[in-house]
C-alpha cells in the first residue's frame, strides 16, 4: 500500500478519526463541509499534528505517536494543492515554481519543463495577480510537481468556481493524474466530481471515515444514511424489517417488497428520484398514491414534489423526470408512484 492512514485528533468537541489505505490510485474523501476532510489532509502533510496514530507513505513512516516519530512537513514530500492555490504573491510564476525544486536538480531545466508541460509559456515573469484563475491553478500544480512529491493531495480544488472554468480545471487534473505516478487524494463534497475523477471513495461523516467503496457501489448500494445522502439519494424513509424480503417504510406508511434480502438491522430505505415508475393500479405492490403539490422546472427536467396521501402532512416524494415526459403525462394532479423492488436502497 502506498499510503496508509490511521489517526485520531481532538479539537474541542470535534473528534477526528481517519482510517484508510490507498494504493497508486485516486482516492476521494467525500463528505459534507466541516466533517474533517481538510484536517485529514493537513495531518498527512504535517501541517497539523494528530494526537495519536500512524501515517505511512511508500514505506516511510511519517508519523507514529507510539514511536514518537513526526517527520517535519518539509521532508514529507507530500504535494498539497490548497483551495486558494496559495501562490506566493511576491514571486513571479518562475520563482513560485522554483521554490519547490530540490538543490540537487538543475532549476532552470526543471522550470522550463514545467512551464511547457502546463502551458505557461510567456507567463514566466508574471505575478499571480496578473493570472486568471485557471492559470493560477496550473502554476500551483506545476510548483507542486516540481517538488517531486510522492503523494498528491487536492483540497476542494473546484469549489467557488463557475461551471465552465471548473470543467477546464477538471480536465487539467485528469491530465495530471495520467502522468503522476504516486497516489492521489482528492477531497470534495461534490459527488459528481468525485465520480468522474476517482476510482474509490472514502465517505467521511462527523470526523470519521466510513467504509471505502468502489465508486460504482456508492450509487448502487450505499450502506449508511450519510453515504446515501452524499450520493444524492433524495427520498429516504425510516424503515424496519417485516419479513425476509419485505420492510415497512414508516414515513411513507407503506410496506415495500425488496428483491434483495432485508438485513435485520435495516433502519432506512431510500429511493432515487429518477427511478420511479408510474402505475395505474393503487393496489399493486410497491405503489404509493400521491397528490402533486408543487412542480419545479429545472434546466432539463421537471421536479415534482408529491405528497404521500396515506402519511403525515409534510411527507413528500421527490420525482424527477424529463420535460417531454411530464408534458405527455398531461401534468396530472395525482400520481401513483411505483418503487421497483430491485431499486430500493436499504440502509443500516
Amino acid at each position, binding site marked *: 500500500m502506498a499510503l496508509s492512514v490511521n489517526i485520531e485528533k481532538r479539537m474541542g468537541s470535534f473528534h477526528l478519526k481517519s482510517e484508510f489505505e490507498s494504493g497508486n490510485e485516486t482516492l476521494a474523501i467525500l463528505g459534507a463541509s466541516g466533517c474533517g476532510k481538510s484536517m485529514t489532509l493537513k495531518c498527512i502533510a*504535517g501541517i497539523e499534528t494528530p494526537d495519536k496514530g500512524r501515517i505511512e507513505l511508500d514505506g516511510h513512516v511519517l508519523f507514529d505517536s507510539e514511536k514518537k516519530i513526526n517527520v517535519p512537513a518539509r521532508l514529507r514530500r507530500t504535494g498539497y494543492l490548497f483551495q486558494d492555490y496559495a501562490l506566493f*504573491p511576491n514571486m513571479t510564476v518562475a520563482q513560485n515554481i522554483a521554490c519547490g525544486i530540490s538543490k540537487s536538480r538543475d532549476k532552470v531545466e526543471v522550470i522550463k519543463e514545467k512551464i511547457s508541460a502546463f502551458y505557461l509559456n510567456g507567463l514566466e515573469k508574471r505575478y499571480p495577480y*496578473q493570472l486568471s484563475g485557471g492559470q493560477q491553478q496550473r502554476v500551483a500544480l506545476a510548483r507542486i510537481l516540481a517538488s517531486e512529491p510522492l503523494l498528491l493531495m487536492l483540497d476542494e480544488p473546484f469549489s467557488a468556481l463557475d461551471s465552465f472554468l471548473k470543467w477546464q480545471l477538471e480536465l487539467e487534473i485528469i491530465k495530471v493524474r495520467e502522468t503522476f505516478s504516486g497516489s492521489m487524494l482528492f477531497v470534495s463534497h461534490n459527488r459528481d466530481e468525485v465520480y468522474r475523477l476517482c476510482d474509490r471513495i472514502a465517505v467521511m461523516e462527523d470526523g470519521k471515515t466510513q467504509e471505502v467503496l468502489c465508486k460504482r457501489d456508492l450509487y448502487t448500494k450505499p450502506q449508511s444514511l450519510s453515504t446515501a445522502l452524499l450520493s444524492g439519494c433524495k427520498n429516504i424513509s425510516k424503515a424496519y424489517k417485516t419479513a425476509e424480503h419485505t420492510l415497512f417504510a414508516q414515513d411513507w406508511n407503506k410496506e415495500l417488497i425488496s428483491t434483495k434480502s432485508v438485513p435485520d438491522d435495516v433502519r432506512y430505505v431510500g429511493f432515487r428520484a429518477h427511478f420511479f415508475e408510474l402505475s395505474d393500479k393503487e393496489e399493486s405492490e410497491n405503489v404509493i398514491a400521491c397528490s402533486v403539490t408543487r412542480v419545479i422546472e429545472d434546466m432539463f427536467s421537471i421536479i415534482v414534489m408529491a405528497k404521500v396521501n396515506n402519511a403525515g402532512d409534510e411527507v413528500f416524494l421527490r420525482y424527477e423526470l424529463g420535460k417531454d415526459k411530464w408534458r405527455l403525462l398531461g401534468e396530472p394532479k395525482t400520481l401513483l408512484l411505483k418503487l421497483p423492488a430491485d431499486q430500493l436502497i436499504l440502509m443500516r
Partner: protein
Amino acid sequence: MDYSPLWLSLKVALLATIFTFILGILAAWLTVKLKRGKGIVDGLFTLPLVLPPTIVGFFLLVIFGKNSFIGEFLSEIGAPVVFTWVGAVIASTVVAFPLMYRTARGAFEQLDENLLSAGRTLGMKERTLFLKIMLPNSIPSIMAGAVLAFARALGEFGATIMLAGNIPGRTQTVSVAIYTAVQAGNWDLAYRWMFIIVVISFVTILAMNAWTRYAARFRRESKRLWR
C-alpha cells in the same frame, strides 16, 4: 543658530530605527513561533511602551551605570554609554522597539497561514520561509512600524535625558534642546526647532507612505484577484 542638535537627533533616530527594525522583526518572528509562554514574552517586549520613559531611562542608567558590571566593562574598554550620544541611541532604540515589534508581529500573524503551509510542504526551511515569504509579504505593515519607530525615536525625551544627559554639542538632541530653550526663556529658538521637527516628521511620513504604496503593489492588486 547651532544646528548640532538637529544632526545629532537625525543620527540617533536613524540608528535607533535601524536597530529596532532588525531587533523588532526578529523578536516578532521568534514570538510568533513560540508555542508556550507567548504572553509573558510579549509582555516583556511591550513593557517599554507602557512604562514612563523616565523609568526606562532609569533602568538603563542602572544597567549601564558605573556601578554595574556592564557599565564598568564598557568604561574600561573606553566606550562608556552614560552621558554619550551612544546612550541616546540605546535609549531611543529601547523606547521605539515595542512599536516595531508589535506591528511586525501583527503583520506576521495576519499572513495567510496557507502560504506558510504551502512553503513547508514544498520543502522550504523555516529561515527561507521567513526571508522569502513572511518578510516580503508583510512589507507594508513593517514599513508602517518603521515610521512609527522613527517618529518615536526622533521625539524621545525622557529616557534620553536620563541616560545621555543634556550636554550641548554632545548629547543634546532637538527635543532636549527645545526643553532647554523654553527653560531659558528663548522662545524664538523653541519656535524654530518646533518648525524644523514638524517639517521633518511630515516629510518622513509622506515619503514612507509613497514607498509603502509602491512596495505593496502586489498585495493591493491581489485583492482584485479574479477567481
